[in-house]
């Protein structure tokens, strides 16, 4: 069996499993899996770009995904005029001052000759700048958060169409990645891992606590969406007629229509990004990346600027994760910083890439779909298994109720087991790199 046939079979298999979900559970859940699968596939492409192409160990995926989600709020939410009037300029000025402090400290550190004077000057700028920044920033934040805290209490966004938020999410993530890469990429792989892990936690902490930015844990709900609302469709006689004509219940038809709309949009993004990633892989740039990954010393001897290339691919991969994050928040229609968990948004993406096949874009896409499907379906399967296991036990046995209650945690076990099995018996993944 040639590689192409095998890959087609694998993709057909995953497609078949999603169809099976449609037949056995409901088409709504099948489409939900498909939509999140598309998003997961895009995240996996981003991580694959960093790990598969360049061997960069980024475990801060969650942070970039969350930044993409933040971009949706910043771009598409309606601006809160009152909050801007109360303290908007002050907040912005404070942020600028904070940034200026850091830039000044970095400049002093690079331009001044080494010595005690430099250390003192840097410290003085940092400490002085910090207090000035807090002095300007804090009153502004207080004023903004006082404006109708139950309803808004934040600055709002630009009120632009939500589709613009997707590239904006990519840009925001890219900007953050550039900053991180500039400081952390010179380090060895384990250190980069710890650094990115920390950055992701910090990004989430900022999003949870800075209420003026995106309401923190109060969440921003009711974000605008690129597809029509179900209720509008149900009130549209033309839609109802055609739904009934096709033999569908109008309510189900409207939910399906909306989800298919999302699928189409996501598919377009996935195809574009996959095409770009494939082109990059085949290009001289892609070959150089793999050469750097396989031997940094050799690549450096050939005159390649390893750190610069690493920075480049780190920014690109993170941007893709940011786009995926923005798409996910759009699909949810709300930004909920409390729900970002490293196991779900960082390590699960890693499982997708490793299981799918690191270094192969199609592998990453396949892994994205397959692992997401499993992540969703392991729970009902686990429930079923537990029902079978415990069927012989007494109705009121404590062990039985405990086992039934714990079935939900089967997914973590399954994912870990799957990752270990693939690493052991098929370390190059389902669709290996050519």
């Amino acid at each position, binding site marked *: 069996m040639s590689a192409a046939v095998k890959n087609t079979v694998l993709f057909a298999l995953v497609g078949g499993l999603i169809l099976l979900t449609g037949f056995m559970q409901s088409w709504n859940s099948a489409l939900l899996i498909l939509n999140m699968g598309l998003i997961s596939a895009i995240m996996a492409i981003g991580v694959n770009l960093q790990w598969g192409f360049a*061997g960069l*160990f980024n475990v801060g995926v969650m942070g970039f995904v969350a930044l993409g989600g933040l971009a949706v709020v910043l771009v598409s939410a309606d601006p809160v005029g009152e909050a801007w009037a109360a303290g908007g300029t002050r907040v912005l000025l404070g942020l600028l001052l904070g940034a200026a402090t850091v830039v000044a400290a970095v400049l002093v550190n690079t331009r001044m000759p080494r010595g005690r004077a430099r250390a003192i000057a840097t410290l003085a700028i940092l400490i002085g700048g*910090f207090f000035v920044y807090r002095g300007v920033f804090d009153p502004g934040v207080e004023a903004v958060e006082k404006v109708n805290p139950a309803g808004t209490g934040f600055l709002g966004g630009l009120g632009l169409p939500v589709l613009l938020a997707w590239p904006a999410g990519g840009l925001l993530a890219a900007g953050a990645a550039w900053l991180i890469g500039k*400081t*952390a990429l010179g*380090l*060895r*792989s*384990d*250190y980069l*891992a*710890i*650094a990115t*892990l*920390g*950055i992701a*936690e*910090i990004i989430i*902490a900022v999003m*949870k*606590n800075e209420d003026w930015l995106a309401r923190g844990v109060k969440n921003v709900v009711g974000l605008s969406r690129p597809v029509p609302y179900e209720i509008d469709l149900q009130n549209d006689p033309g839609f109802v007629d055609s739904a009934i004509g096709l033999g569908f219940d109008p309510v189900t038809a409207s939910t399906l229509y909306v989800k298919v709309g999302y699928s189409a949009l996501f598919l377009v993004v996935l195809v574009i990004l996959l095409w770009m990633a494939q082109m990059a892989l085949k290009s001289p740039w892609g070959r150089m990346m793999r050469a750097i990954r396989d031997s940094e010393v050799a690549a450096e001897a050939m005159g390649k600027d390893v750190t610069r290339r690493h920075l480049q691919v780190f920014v690109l991969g993170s941007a893709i994760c940011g786009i995926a994050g923005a798409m996910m928040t759009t699909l949810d229609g709300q930004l909920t910083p409390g729900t970002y968990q*490293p*196991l779900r948004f960082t*390590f699960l993406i*890693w*499982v997708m890439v*490793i299981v799918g096949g690191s270094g192969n874009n199609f592998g990453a896409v396949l892994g994205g779909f397959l692992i997401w499907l499993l992540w969703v379906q392991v729970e009902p399967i686990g429930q079923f298994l537990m029902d079978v296991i415990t069927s012989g036990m007494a109705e009121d046995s404590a062990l039985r109720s405990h086992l039934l*209650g*714990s079935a939900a*945690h*089967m*997914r*973590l*076990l*399954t*994912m*870990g*087991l799957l*990752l*270990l099995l693939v*690493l*052991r018996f098929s*370390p190059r993944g389902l669709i290996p790199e050519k």
Partner: protein
Amino acid sequence: MDFLNAIVALSNFVLVPAIAYGSQLALGALGVTLIYGILRFSNFAHGDTMAFGTMVVVLVTWWFQSMGISFGPLPTALLALPLGILGCMALLLVTDRVVYRFYRAQKAKPVILVIVSMGVMFILNGLVRFIIGPDEQRFADGERFIISARDFKEMTGLREGLAIKSTQGITVIVAVIAVALLFWFLNRTRTGKSMRAYSDNEDLALLSGINPERVVMYTWLIVAALATVAGTLYGLDKSFKPFVYFQLLLPIFASAIVGGLGSPLGAIAGGFVIAFSEVTITYAWKKVLGYLMPEGLEPDGLVQLLSTDYKFAVSFVILLIVLLFRPTGLFRGKSV
């Protein structure tokens, strides 16, 4: 008098909690650093190893409590600790046999081992949630305070009280005993010396007839003991919640790296550096400054440099500074 009040307030809110937290971090970081020194990879599953060991301790504690066994004024968990360590040792030996040994034989790259440890992390995380559930569990019993704030105020007549929780006292004592035992083992015993030799230079150690599998086994055993002790102390001091242990990974790694990966002494120093900076930077200094500053100059605000939600940021920034200016850490650990 004001000066004394300031010192007491400072000890109560900063020094005592930071010393206890620092000891817990140091024990955790020792485990990470030992694995790095001997097995040469960053173990992402360490937080969950701690959670597993602590879970066994919690379960045994409940069992003891149900049988009416108690440890007098001390928490029953201390009695359960040896059993928890044994459970954790069994777990780590099994994972080494089933998972890690294969990659060791293959001489896999360290980064592959890190990814493997990610898989182990998933499994342990799932296992702990499966057995004990994701919720918060309290298992501390016995005397709550060595000295409570009110007693202290009555004793000294100061306006500020100094409360020392018994868990904080136990943390420090147990940590000192554990570290003393560890250093005695590493420096005085034959096995400990062979471990250090293996860590310094693998090839030379192999040439001199050291059995690598034995060294690795002892490492896992020690790591299991350290992780369980660290986890139990943290759980007694705060409370046991699996997800929090997973999150402890970051400050623990920060401690180990700040001290210098592979250096046990560095891990201890790193733990205290991280703990003290976290607590001082997120502490609201209003009270202490209120006593120290002259009349009329007392601060109005809380004088809190960062809100407590940003404590991760503190360990991270220290980590970054150390990595940028002294990549091998304070105690010259390994830099591969």
